[in-house]
């Protein structure tokens, strides 16, 4: 029997959320033969100490991966595509000040 093909070797990626509204963050993975035990084991590995509010358990084969450097790390300078050059701090403060003045007027 090819070990890689036995169902017990199915890998499930586990994402966890610490509190409602937080982003789901990749925690790690578990091996399990089916969805039901994958959930149980995810609960044990990533939730038994009350550290998680919610878990997502995803079969690894359902993940579509992209790691092609031609697509993700193209060789030309792309710094103009970053938002770093555009400072919105002062605009935000001005907008907040306007909003509070409007609030006082009403």
């Amino acid at each position, binding site marked *: 029997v090819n070990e890689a093909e036995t169902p017990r070797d199915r890998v499930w990626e586990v994402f966890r959320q610490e509190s409602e509204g937080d982003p789901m963050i990749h925690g790690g993975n578990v*091996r399990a*033969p089916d969805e*039901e*035990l994958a959930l149980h084991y995810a609960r*044990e*590995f990533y939730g038994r100490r009350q550290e998680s509010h919610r878990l997502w358990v995803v079969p690894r084969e359902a993940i579509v991966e992209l790691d092609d450097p031609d697509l993700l790390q193209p060789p030309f300078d792309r710094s103009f595509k970053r938002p770093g050059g555009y400072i919105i701090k002062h605009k935000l403060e001005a907008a907040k000040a306007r909003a509070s003045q409007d609030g006082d007027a009403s």
Partner: protein
Amino acid sequence: VSEYELAPATREALAELLLTLADDEFVLGFWDSEWTGIAPMLEEDVAMSSISQDEIGHARAWYELLAGLTDDDPDRIAFGREPDAYRHAALMNHPRTDWAFTVARRYLYEHADALRLEALMRSSHAPVAELAAKMRREETYHLLHFDAWLRRLAEAGGEARERLLAAVDRLWADAQAVFTPLAGEAALLESGILPAPLSAIRAEWVERVTAAFAALGLPLPDAAAEPSGDGRSRRTDDFGWLHSQFTMVARSEAAATW
């Protein structure tokens, strides 16, 4: 009902009930902690160890309640008795054996315990009702886990199903012992500490297990089996060995504070 208002006979009956609840969880927790390191797969190893820890935690809560009632020390009750003084059901006299045996025992026990806790959640004695409600929430996961394993072994067929059936055959009579009538049961029922007779809880349990086994095409040994009178006092050499293991550290330094 406050424990200070309890009549002496009721108080004694409550102590007996608490000891049976605690010893069931304590002994089963120790047997199944033996899977640590050797469970069928790494993930199950962690799950089984964690579930066993849950049971030891529940035992501790019951022992503490009992110690408060009898002015005793919970560690003394847990570790300071001779094997004959333990009051766990005969179901917990058996060693760990193989994985199918463990699954069969856990399945039978978890459902018995869940129904017993559901009854105790309605206890007139508030500390018992509160603890039972907390434990019942934690048992939800245990039920899901052993329901899943019972189904896996039953549906796998072949050796897995055969071992499961052999285990159920060996355990069925002793599983009834979880519901062995207590010496003080009349006082517990009269005071409302125990809201339903253990025989009535057992009838619910038999109905539930019968339906689950039928759905999986598993034969049930004997639905009419009754708990034997010594279901909570009969001890075995296997338990004697386990007792020597779990009291080893406490015996090594009797005067130590842990």
